[in-house]
Protein backbone atom coordinates (compact mmCIF):
# COMPACT_ATOMS: atom_id res chain seq x y z
CA UNK A 1 0.00 0.00 0.00
CA UNK A 2 2.57 2.48 -1.10
CA UNK A 3 1.26 5.94 -1.90
CA UNK A 4 2.32 7.00 -5.39
CA UNK A 5 0.87 10.48 -5.53
CA UNK A 6 3.37 13.25 -4.93
CA UNK A 7 6.52 11.20 -4.43
CA UNK A 8 9.27 9.60 -6.47
CA UNK A 9 10.99 6.80 -4.63
CA UNK A 10 14.61 5.75 -4.80
CA UNK A 11 15.97 2.65 -6.47
CA UNK A 12 14.08 -0.61 -6.03
CA UNK A 13 16.13 -2.99 -3.92
CA UNK A 14 15.80 -6.57 -2.84
CA UNK A 15 16.51 -7.84 0.64
CA UNK A 16 15.88 -10.94 2.69
CA UNK A 17 13.95 -11.53 5.87
CA UNK A 18 14.57 -14.90 7.51
CA UNK A 19 16.07 -16.04 4.24
CA UNK A 20 13.03 -15.14 2.16
CA UNK A 21 13.51 -12.53 -0.57
CA UNK A 22 11.47 -9.34 -0.51
CA UNK A 23 11.62 -6.15 -2.50
CA UNK A 24 11.39 -2.55 -1.43
CA UNK A 25 12.95 0.80 -2.15
CA UNK A 26 16.29 2.14 -1.08
CA UNK A 27 15.90 4.32 2.00
CA UNK A 28 12.54 2.92 3.08
CA UNK A 29 12.57 1.64 6.62
CA UNK A 30 12.87 -2.13 6.86
CA UNK A 31 9.70 -2.13 8.96
CA UNK A 32 7.71 -0.27 6.30
CA UNK A 33 9.12 -2.39 3.46
CA UNK A 34 8.19 -5.64 5.21
CA UNK A 35 4.80 -4.19 6.13
CA UNK A 36 4.12 -3.25 2.52
CA UNK A 37 4.99 -6.82 1.54
CA UNK A 38 2.40 -8.18 3.93
CA UNK A 39 4.98 -9.28 6.49
CA UNK A 40 3.63 -7.54 9.57
CA UNK A 41 4.49 -10.29 12.09
CA UNK A 42 8.14 -9.64 12.97
CA UNK A 43 8.65 -11.64 16.17
CA UNK A 44 6.91 -13.19 19.17
CA UNK A 45 6.70 -11.63 22.61
CA UNK A 46 9.17 -13.42 24.93
CA UNK A 47 6.81 -14.22 27.81
CA UNK A 48 3.54 -15.16 26.16
CA UNK A 49 4.84 -15.88 22.64
CA UNK A 50 2.28 -13.61 21.02
CA UNK A 51 2.77 -12.22 17.49
CA UNK A 52 4.17 -8.69 17.36
CA UNK A 53 4.96 -6.17 14.67
CA UNK A 54 5.84 -2.52 14.30
CA UNK A 55 3.90 -0.22 16.57
CA UNK A 56 5.26 3.26 17.32
CA UNK A 57 7.44 3.75 14.24
CA UNK A 58 9.65 6.18 16.17
CA UNK A 59 12.24 3.87 17.70
CA UNK A 60 10.69 3.91 21.15
CA UNK A 61 8.57 0.78 21.69
CA UNK A 62 11.22 -1.75 20.48
CA UNK A 63 8.50 -4.02 19.09
CA UNK A 64 10.01 -4.09 15.60
CA UNK A 65 13.47 -5.18 16.75
CA UNK A 66 15.26 -7.30 14.14
CA UNK A 67 18.73 -8.60 13.37
CA UNK A 68 20.53 -6.60 10.69
CA UNK A 69 24.12 -7.51 9.87
CA UNK A 70 24.64 -9.10 13.27
CA UNK A 71 23.22 -6.23 15.28
CA UNK A 72 19.81 -5.75 16.88
CA UNK A 73 18.09 -2.62 15.58
CA UNK A 74 14.51 -1.39 15.48
CA UNK A 75 13.38 -2.09 11.92
CA UNK A 76 11.65 1.29 11.81
CA UNK A 77 15.04 2.99 12.19
CA UNK A 78 16.89 0.90 9.62
CA UNK A 79 16.91 2.13 6.02
CA UNK A 80 16.90 -0.43 3.26
CA UNK A 81 19.93 -0.96 1.07
CA UNK A 82 20.44 -3.55 -1.62
CA UNK A 83 20.93 -7.13 -0.35
CA UNK A 84 20.32 -6.28 3.29
CA UNK A 85 19.90 -9.45 5.37
CA UNK A 86 17.32 -9.18 8.09
CA UNK A 87 16.08 -11.81 10.51
CA UNK A 88 13.71 -12.24 13.43
CA UNK A 89 14.93 -12.06 16.96
CA UNK A 90 14.12 -14.92 19.24
CA UNK A 91 14.92 -15.40 22.91
CA UNK A 92 14.63 -19.16 22.53
CA UNK A 93 17.62 -21.46 22.13
CA UNK A 94 18.30 -22.06 18.42
Amino acid at each position, binding site marked *: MRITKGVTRGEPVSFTFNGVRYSGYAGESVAAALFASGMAHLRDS*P*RNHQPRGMFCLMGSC*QECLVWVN*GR*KVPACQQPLVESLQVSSI*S*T*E*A*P
Partner: protein
Amino acid sequence: MTSTLDVVNPADRPFDAAVIGAGVMGCSTAFHLAQGGMKVALIDRGQLCREASGVNAGTLTLHMTRAALVPYAMKAWEMWMTAEQWLGAGVLATHVPGLTLAFTEAECEMLEQRAAARREYGANINILTPQQALEVEPGLNPRLLKAAHCDIDGFATAYLTGRAFRQGLDAQQVALYENLPVEAVDRRNGVFRISCRGGRVLHARRIVLAGGVWIEPMLAWLGVRIPIKTLINQLSITERMRPVMRTVMSVANGLLSLKQFANGTILIGGGWQGIGDRERGGVEAVPENLIGNMRLARYVVPAMSEGRIARIWLGLEAETADAMPIIGDVPGVEDAYVVGSAHSGYTSGPFMGKIIAQYILGRQPEMPLFDPARLLSRHPGNEEA
Protein backbone atom coordinates in the same frame (compact mmCIF):
# COMPACT_ATOMS: atom_id res chain seq x y z
CA MET B 1 -1.18 15.13 59.10
CA THR B 2 0.06 13.76 62.41
CA SER B 3 0.68 15.81 65.53
CA THR B 4 3.42 15.33 68.05
CA LEU B 5 0.87 13.64 70.26
CA ASP B 6 0.16 10.96 67.67
CA VAL B 7 1.65 7.94 69.35
CA VAL B 8 1.73 4.71 67.37
CA ASN B 9 1.94 2.51 70.36
CA PRO B 10 2.09 3.82 73.92
CA ALA B 11 5.12 3.37 76.20
CA ASP B 12 3.23 0.95 78.43
CA ARG B 13 2.59 -1.39 75.52
CA PRO B 14 5.89 -1.43 73.73
CA PHE B 15 6.87 -3.79 70.95
CA ASP B 16 9.15 -6.59 72.13
CA ALA B 17 11.53 -5.52 69.41
CA ALA B 18 11.75 -2.86 66.76
CA VAL B 19 13.96 -3.55 63.76
CA ILE B 20 15.11 -0.45 61.94
CA GLY B 21 15.99 -1.09 58.33
CA ALA B 22 13.88 -3.44 56.17
CA GLY B 23 16.51 -4.93 53.89
CA VAL B 24 17.12 -8.66 53.86
CA MET B 25 18.92 -8.56 57.22
CA GLY B 26 16.22 -6.55 58.93
CA CYS B 27 13.40 -8.50 57.31
CA SER B 28 14.92 -11.82 58.27
CA THR B 29 15.60 -10.64 61.82
CA ALA B 30 12.04 -9.38 62.22
CA PHE B 31 10.63 -12.55 60.71
CA HIS B 32 12.56 -14.85 63.02
CA LEU B 33 11.90 -12.78 66.11
CA ALA B 34 8.20 -12.89 65.40
CA GLN B 35 8.37 -16.59 64.69
CA GLY B 36 10.05 -16.91 68.10
CA GLY B 37 7.04 -15.32 69.74
CA MET B 38 7.94 -11.64 69.91
CA LYS B 39 5.73 -8.74 68.97
CA VAL B 40 7.84 -7.01 66.34
CA ALA B 41 7.85 -3.71 64.49
CA LEU B 42 9.89 -3.33 61.30
CA ILE B 43 10.57 0.25 60.22
CA ASP B 44 12.08 1.64 57.04
CA ARG B 45 12.40 5.15 55.68
CA GLY B 46 11.49 3.75 52.28
CA GLN B 47 9.95 0.54 51.06
CA LEU B 48 11.17 -2.84 52.18
CA CYS B 49 14.10 -4.34 50.31
CA ARG B 50 14.46 -1.44 47.88
CA GLU B 51 18.05 -0.56 48.74
CA ALA B 52 20.95 -3.02 48.38
CA SER B 53 18.68 -5.99 49.02
CA GLY B 54 16.49 -5.21 46.05
CA VAL B 55 19.04 -4.04 43.53
CA ASN B 56 22.07 -6.31 43.98
CA ALA B 57 23.20 -8.95 41.52
CA GLY B 58 21.56 -11.76 43.47
CA THR B 59 24.68 -13.92 43.35
CA LEU B 60 24.51 -16.84 45.77
CA THR B 61 28.13 -17.84 45.47
CA LEU B 62 30.89 -18.99 47.75
CA HIS B 63 33.58 -17.87 45.30
CA MET B 64 33.23 -14.16 46.02
CA THR B 65 32.01 -14.34 49.61
CA ARG B 66 34.69 -13.59 52.20
CA ALA B 67 36.38 -16.89 53.06
CA ALA B 68 35.42 -16.70 56.74
CA LEU B 69 31.80 -16.18 55.75
CA VAL B 70 31.61 -19.34 53.66
CA PRO B 71 29.82 -21.36 56.37
CA TYR B 72 27.24 -18.58 56.75
CA ALA B 73 26.80 -18.34 52.98
CA MET B 74 26.24 -22.09 52.76
CA LYS B 75 23.52 -21.95 55.40
CA ALA B 76 21.95 -18.95 53.72
CA TRP B 77 22.11 -20.71 50.35
CA GLU B 78 19.84 -23.40 51.78
CA MET B 79 17.47 -20.75 53.05
CA TRP B 80 17.27 -18.97 49.69
CA MET B 81 16.69 -22.25 47.87
CA THR B 82 13.88 -23.22 50.21
CA ALA B 83 12.34 -19.81 50.80
CA GLU B 84 8.92 -20.94 49.59
CA GLN B 85 8.84 -23.31 52.54
CA TRP B 86 10.02 -21.20 55.45
CA LEU B 87 9.13 -17.73 54.20
CA GLY B 88 6.07 -18.64 52.16
CA ALA B 89 7.38 -17.04 48.96
CA GLY B 90 10.56 -17.26 46.96
CA VAL B 91 12.96 -15.14 44.97
CA LEU B 92 13.33 -17.59 42.05
CA ALA B 93 16.52 -18.89 43.67
CA THR B 94 18.18 -21.07 41.05
CA HIS B 95 20.81 -23.70 41.74
CA VAL B 96 23.56 -23.76 39.12
CA PRO B 97 27.30 -24.34 39.41
CA GLY B 98 29.60 -21.39 39.93
CA LEU B 99 32.82 -20.80 38.04
CA THR B 100 35.51 -18.31 38.87
CA LEU B 101 37.93 -17.72 36.03
CA ALA B 102 41.51 -16.70 35.40
CA PHE B 103 42.83 -15.19 32.17
CA THR B 104 46.33 -14.17 33.26
CA GLU B 105 49.05 -15.79 35.36
CA ALA B 106 48.42 -13.33 38.15
CA GLU B 107 44.75 -14.24 38.11
CA CYS B 108 45.64 -17.93 38.25
CA GLU B 109 47.50 -17.28 41.48
CA MET B 110 44.61 -15.31 42.92
CA LEU B 111 42.26 -18.07 41.87
CA GLU B 112 44.25 -20.77 43.67
CA GLN B 113 44.55 -18.59 46.78
CA ARG B 114 40.84 -17.83 46.91
CA ALA B 115 39.88 -21.45 46.33
CA ALA B 116 42.24 -22.68 49.04
CA ALA B 117 41.00 -20.11 51.55
CA ARG B 118 37.42 -21.08 50.95
CA ARG B 119 38.09 -24.78 51.08
CA GLU B 120 39.45 -24.24 54.57
CA TYR B 121 36.06 -22.94 55.59
CA GLY B 122 34.17 -25.84 54.07
CA ALA B 123 33.51 -24.87 50.47
CA ASN B 124 33.83 -27.70 48.00
CA ILE B 125 35.81 -25.93 45.29
CA ASN B 126 37.85 -27.81 42.70
CA ILE B 127 40.21 -26.49 40.04
CA LEU B 128 39.40 -27.12 36.39
CA THR B 129 41.47 -27.01 33.24
CA PRO B 130 40.16 -24.81 30.43
CA GLN B 131 38.84 -27.87 28.63
CA GLN B 132 36.95 -28.99 31.71
CA ALA B 133 35.59 -25.50 32.24
CA LEU B 134 34.37 -25.38 28.64
CA GLU B 135 32.48 -28.60 29.19
CA VAL B 136 30.68 -27.01 32.11
CA GLU B 137 30.22 -23.69 30.31
CA PRO B 138 30.57 -24.03 26.52
CA GLY B 139 30.18 -20.32 25.91
CA LEU B 140 33.38 -19.39 27.70
CA ASN B 141 36.23 -17.64 25.96
CA PRO B 142 38.68 -20.46 25.10
CA ARG B 143 41.59 -18.17 26.10
CA LEU B 144 40.75 -19.08 29.68
CA LEU B 145 43.80 -20.29 31.66
CA LYS B 146 42.16 -21.85 34.69
CA ALA B 147 38.84 -22.11 36.48
CA ALA B 148 37.61 -22.89 39.98
CA HIS B 149 34.32 -24.74 40.19
CA CYS B 150 31.78 -25.02 42.96
CA ASP B 151 28.59 -27.02 42.82
CA ILE B 152 26.85 -25.06 45.55
CA ASP B 153 26.22 -21.83 43.69
CA GLY B 154 23.42 -20.01 41.96
CA PHE B 155 21.44 -16.82 41.99
CA ALA B 156 18.27 -15.15 43.13
CA THR B 157 16.22 -12.38 41.56
CA ALA B 158 16.94 -9.60 44.03
CA TYR B 159 14.05 -7.36 43.09
CA LEU B 160 11.63 -10.06 44.20
CA THR B 161 12.98 -9.99 47.75
CA GLY B 162 10.63 -7.31 49.01
CA ARG B 163 7.50 -8.99 47.77
CA ALA B 164 8.65 -12.35 49.15
CA PHE B 165 9.41 -10.99 52.61
CA ARG B 166 6.22 -8.94 52.61
CA GLN B 167 4.22 -12.14 52.49
CA GLY B 168 6.30 -13.81 55.19
CA LEU B 169 6.24 -10.80 57.47
CA ASP B 170 2.47 -10.45 57.12
CA ALA B 171 2.06 -14.13 57.99
CA GLN B 172 4.13 -13.62 61.17
CA GLN B 173 2.12 -10.49 61.96
CA VAL B 174 5.13 -8.22 62.00
CA ALA B 175 3.98 -4.61 62.10
CA LEU B 176 5.60 -3.12 59.00
CA TYR B 177 6.12 0.65 58.82
CA GLU B 178 7.32 1.72 55.39
CA ASN B 179 8.08 5.28 54.31
CA LEU B 180 8.71 6.24 57.93
CA PRO B 181 12.16 7.71 58.50
CA VAL B 182 13.50 7.41 62.05
CA GLU B 183 15.00 10.64 63.34
CA ALA B 184 16.16 9.82 66.85
CA VAL B 185 16.29 6.99 69.34
CA ASP B 186 16.58 7.27 73.09
CA ARG B 187 16.02 5.00 76.01
CA ARG B 188 13.92 5.68 79.12
CA ASN B 189 12.97 3.30 81.87
CA GLY B 190 14.01 0.26 79.89
CA VAL B 191 12.01 1.25 76.79
CA PHE B 192 13.37 2.64 73.54
CA ARG B 193 11.59 5.68 72.19
CA ILE B 194 11.86 5.71 68.39
CA SER B 195 11.00 9.15 67.06
CA CYS B 196 9.97 9.19 63.42
CA ARG B 197 9.16 11.85 60.89
CA GLY B 198 5.86 13.59 61.36
CA GLY B 199 5.90 13.20 65.12
CA ARG B 200 5.12 9.50 65.17
CA VAL B 201 6.75 7.63 68.03
CA LEU B 202 7.19 3.90 68.45
CA HIS B 203 8.17 2.18 71.66
CA ALA B 204 10.09 -1.08 71.96
CA ARG B 205 11.96 -3.02 74.60
CA ARG B 206 14.71 -3.88 72.19
CA ILE B 207 15.98 -2.38 68.97
CA VAL B 208 17.89 -3.96 66.14
CA LEU B 209 19.78 -1.72 63.76
CA ALA B 210 19.74 -3.31 60.34
CA GLY B 211 20.41 -0.40 58.06
CA GLY B 212 23.30 -1.65 55.92
CA VAL B 213 25.41 1.35 54.90
CA TRP B 214 23.29 3.48 57.19
CA ILE B 215 24.26 1.56 60.31
CA GLU B 216 26.96 4.16 60.90
CA PRO B 217 24.48 7.05 61.35
CA MET B 218 22.11 4.70 63.18
CA LEU B 219 24.77 3.81 65.73
CA ALA B 220 25.39 7.52 66.12
CA TRP B 221 21.83 7.86 67.47
CA LEU B 222 23.07 5.80 70.38
CA GLY B 223 26.37 7.62 70.70
CA VAL B 224 28.40 4.77 69.21
CA ARG B 225 30.89 5.32 66.43
CA ILE B 226 31.82 2.59 63.94
CA PRO B 227 32.98 3.84 60.55
CA ILE B 228 31.33 2.04 57.64
CA LYS B 229 32.47 2.55 54.09
CA THR B 230 29.88 2.94 51.37
CA LEU B 231 30.63 1.34 48.02
CA ILE B 232 28.67 2.55 45.01
CA ASN B 233 28.33 -0.52 42.83
CA GLN B 234 27.31 -0.32 39.19
CA LEU B 235 25.14 -3.01 37.69
CA SER B 236 23.65 -3.45 34.27
CA ILE B 237 21.21 -5.83 32.68
CA THR B 238 20.55 -6.78 29.10
CA GLU B 239 17.19 -7.22 27.47
CA ARG B 240 16.00 -10.81 27.15
CA MET B 241 18.25 -12.82 24.87
CA ARG B 242 18.75 -16.41 23.82
CA PRO B 243 20.47 -18.71 26.34
CA VAL B 244 24.24 -18.16 26.14
CA MET B 245 25.39 -19.24 29.59
CA ARG B 246 24.33 -21.72 32.24
CA THR B 247 26.53 -21.05 35.27
CA VAL B 248 27.22 -18.12 37.55
CA MET B 249 30.57 -16.69 36.58
CA SER B 250 33.11 -14.49 38.25
CA VAL B 251 36.71 -13.59 37.54
CA ALA B 252 39.50 -14.32 40.02
CA ASN B 253 40.18 -10.63 40.50
CA GLY B 254 36.64 -10.31 41.84
CA LEU B 255 35.67 -7.76 39.24
CA LEU B 256 32.94 -9.56 37.37
CA SER B 257 29.74 -11.28 38.20
CA LEU B 258 27.78 -12.68 35.30
CA LYS B 259 24.61 -14.71 35.14
CA GLN B 260 21.65 -15.28 32.86
CA PHE B 261 18.18 -15.54 34.36
CA ALA B 262 15.48 -17.90 33.18
CA ASN B 263 13.83 -14.99 31.38
CA GLY B 264 16.94 -14.57 29.26
CA THR B 265 18.22 -11.31 30.72
CA ILE B 266 21.89 -11.21 31.67
CA LEU B 267 23.06 -9.29 34.72
CA ILE B 268 26.55 -7.83 34.76
CA GLY B 269 28.13 -6.82 38.05
CA GLY B 270 31.50 -6.89 39.73
CA GLY B 271 31.74 -3.91 42.00
CA TRP B 272 32.83 -1.32 39.45
CA GLN B 273 32.28 1.99 41.16
CA GLY B 274 29.86 4.72 40.24
CA ILE B 275 29.24 8.11 41.79
CA GLY B 276 27.24 8.59 44.93
CA ASP B 277 27.37 8.48 48.69
CA ARG B 278 25.36 7.53 51.71
CA GLU B 279 23.50 10.83 51.81
CA ARG B 280 22.45 11.06 48.16
CA GLY B 281 22.45 7.37 47.34
CA GLY B 282 23.67 6.23 43.94
CA VAL B 283 23.78 9.27 41.71
CA GLU B 284 25.10 8.04 38.39
CA ALA B 285 27.34 5.57 36.66
CA VAL B 286 30.82 6.40 35.40
CA PRO B 287 30.87 5.64 31.65
CA GLU B 288 34.49 4.38 31.64
CA ASN B 289 33.71 1.96 34.46
CA LEU B 290 30.60 0.75 32.68
CA ILE B 291 32.54 0.09 29.53
CA GLY B 292 35.31 -1.64 31.49
CA ASN B 293 32.80 -3.89 33.24
CA MET B 294 31.06 -4.72 29.95
CA ARG B 295 34.36 -5.42 28.19
CA LEU B 296 35.17 -7.94 30.88
CA ALA B 297 31.74 -9.57 30.50
CA ARG B 298 32.00 -9.73 26.72
CA TYR B 299 35.54 -11.12 26.94
CA VAL B 300 34.46 -13.91 29.26
CA VAL B 301 31.40 -14.90 27.18
CA PRO B 302 31.87 -13.63 23.61
CA ALA B 303 28.21 -14.27 22.73
CA MET B 304 27.42 -11.28 24.92
CA SER B 305 28.17 -9.21 21.81
CA GLU B 306 24.62 -9.95 20.78
CA GLY B 307 23.21 -8.28 23.83
CA ARG B 308 21.81 -4.81 24.29
CA ILE B 309 21.97 -3.15 27.68
CA ALA B 310 18.48 -2.22 28.81
CA ARG B 311 19.25 -0.67 32.17
CA ILE B 312 22.14 0.49 34.33
CA TRP B 313 21.72 1.19 38.03
CA LEU B 314 23.60 1.61 41.26
CA GLY B 315 23.47 -0.10 44.62
CA LEU B 316 25.10 0.81 47.88
CA GLU B 317 27.18 -1.86 49.62
CA ALA B 318 28.58 -1.61 53.12
CA GLU B 319 32.13 -2.49 54.06
CA THR B 320 33.59 -2.38 57.54
CA ALA B 321 37.27 -1.84 58.28
CA ASP B 322 38.01 -5.59 58.26
CA ALA B 323 35.45 -6.42 55.55
CA MET B 324 33.54 -8.62 58.00
CA PRO B 325 29.98 -8.00 59.21
CA ILE B 326 28.86 -6.59 62.52
CA ILE B 327 26.39 -8.88 64.25
CA GLY B 328 25.74 -8.65 67.96
CA ASP B 329 25.25 -6.23 70.84
CA VAL B 330 25.61 -2.53 70.27
CA PRO B 331 28.60 -1.77 72.50
CA GLY B 332 27.56 -0.12 75.73
CA VAL B 333 23.82 -0.03 75.06
CA GLU B 334 21.58 -2.61 76.70
CA ASP B 335 18.98 -4.36 74.59
CA ALA B 336 20.32 -2.81 71.41
CA TYR B 337 21.61 -4.99 68.62
CA VAL B 338 23.07 -4.56 65.20
CA VAL B 339 23.17 -6.82 62.14
CA GLY B 340 24.68 -6.05 58.79
CA SER B 341 27.29 -4.14 56.92
CA ALA B 342 28.53 -7.26 55.27
CA HIS B 343 30.28 -7.25 51.95
CA SER B 344 28.14 -9.54 49.77
CA GLY B 345 25.54 -9.34 52.50
CA TYR B 346 22.66 -10.48 50.33
CA THR B 347 24.18 -13.94 49.93
CA SER B 348 24.30 -14.55 53.69
CA GLY B 349 21.54 -12.15 54.67
CA PRO B 350 18.68 -14.44 55.65
CA PHE B 351 20.96 -16.55 57.83
CA MET B 352 22.53 -13.57 59.54
CA GLY B 353 19.08 -12.31 60.44
CA LYS B 354 18.24 -15.74 61.79
CA ILE B 355 21.24 -15.96 64.10
CA ILE B 356 20.89 -12.49 65.57
CA ALA B 357 17.25 -13.33 66.21
CA GLN B 358 18.33 -16.52 67.94
CA TYR B 359 20.68 -14.48 70.11
CA ILE B 360 18.03 -11.92 70.96
CA LEU B 361 15.53 -14.67 71.80
CA GLY B 362 18.02 -15.99 74.33
CA ARG B 363 18.93 -19.06 72.31
CA GLN B 364 22.34 -20.27 71.18
CA PRO B 365 23.04 -18.84 67.72
CA GLU B 366 23.80 -21.54 65.13
CA MET B 367 27.06 -19.84 64.20
CA PRO B 368 29.28 -17.34 66.05
CA LEU B 369 28.34 -13.68 65.83
CA PHE B 370 30.70 -10.86 64.86
CA ASP B 371 31.26 -8.56 67.81
CA PRO B 372 30.76 -4.95 66.79
CA ALA B 373 33.02 -3.79 69.66
CA ARG B 374 36.07 -4.81 67.67
CA LEU B 375 35.46 -1.98 65.23
CA LEU B 376 34.90 0.82 67.69
CA SER B 377 36.64 3.93 66.56
CA ARG B 378 38.89 5.53 69.16
CA HIS B 379 36.50 8.38 69.73
CA PRO B 380 35.74 10.13 72.99
CA GLY B 381 32.03 9.81 72.29
CA ASN B 382 32.05 6.02 72.54
CA GLU B 383 30.91 4.33 75.74
CA GLU B 384 33.70 1.77 75.44
CA ALA B 385 36.96 3.00 73.94
